[in-house]
């Protein structure tokens, strides 16, 4: 069951789902929640930055390109620390898109384009990225593997 729109607070374990308005305020909330989850998971500064940035880019895409700031459309976000991974899902209610048809932002002819780097960055910064077509909308699942806990810290 999803919580209604409102400030996002995240426990260190367990899955939390949120339904948020298509505004830039929601982007900030999702980014902060991702950063908090990554911090609580003990990731170093670089990894926390990667997670927060990838989740932010996904939220921006959902709101800007997916829902086109339409107040009638919501974004659906979930965050989870499974113990092995941090897993984020970000879904919009837009028309959907084919990620395989996006231009390569590293291609010489695209290097000077002002847009088109969001999905590339998400893929570069996370360990796994999965796309799912919804009806309507698109759901992205972003996964960051957590470093294994050294054996000496595990209970017998």
């Amino acid at each position, binding site marked *: 069951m999803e919580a209604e729109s409102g400030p996002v607070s995240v426990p260190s374990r367990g899955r939390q789902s949120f339904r948020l308005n298509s505004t830039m305020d929601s982007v900030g909330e999702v980014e902060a929640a991702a950063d908090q989850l990554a911090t609580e998971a003990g990731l170093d500064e670089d990894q926390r930055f990667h997670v927060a940035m990838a989740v932010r880019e996904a939220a921006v895409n959902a709101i800007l390109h997916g829902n086109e700031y339409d107040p009638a459309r919501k974004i659906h976000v979930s965050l989870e620390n499974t113990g092995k991974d941090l897993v984020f899902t970000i879904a919009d209610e837009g028309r959907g898109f084919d990620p395989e048809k996006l231009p390569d932002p590293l291609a010489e002819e695209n290097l*000077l384009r*002002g*847009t088109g780097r969001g999905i590339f960055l998400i893929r570069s910064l996370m360990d796994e990225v999965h796309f799912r077509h919804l009806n309507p909308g698109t759901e992205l699942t972003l996964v960051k593997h957590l470093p294994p806990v050294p054996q000496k810290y595990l209970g017998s």
Partner: protein
Amino acid sequence: MALAIASRELDGVTVLDLSGRITLGEGSVQLRDAIRDLIAKGQSRILLDLGEVSYIDSSGLGELVSAYTTAKNQGATLKLLKLTKKVHDLLQLTKLYTVFEIFDDEASAIASFK
């Protein structure tokens, strides 16, 4: 924190000291407006000091590229100074490191415009 932009002149070069975040809705538009203003005033040598830029997203990266191309198309030159590690890493990842002239040292950057 949003983006703060301070402008100063040094040996015919306009240095924009940027501080804060360059992201969609928080700094991209300010940067675009600042560059357009400089070019409209005929300033042809622009150095962006990014030493205090704590965060940049894909929109901010796009805005840096647009600033570069806008300047170039108007016969102006835009270079970058003092990248933070985060910005440096993102410019490398996106191959934009190959597009810009980037300096760690202000004196060298200013001298490069002569």
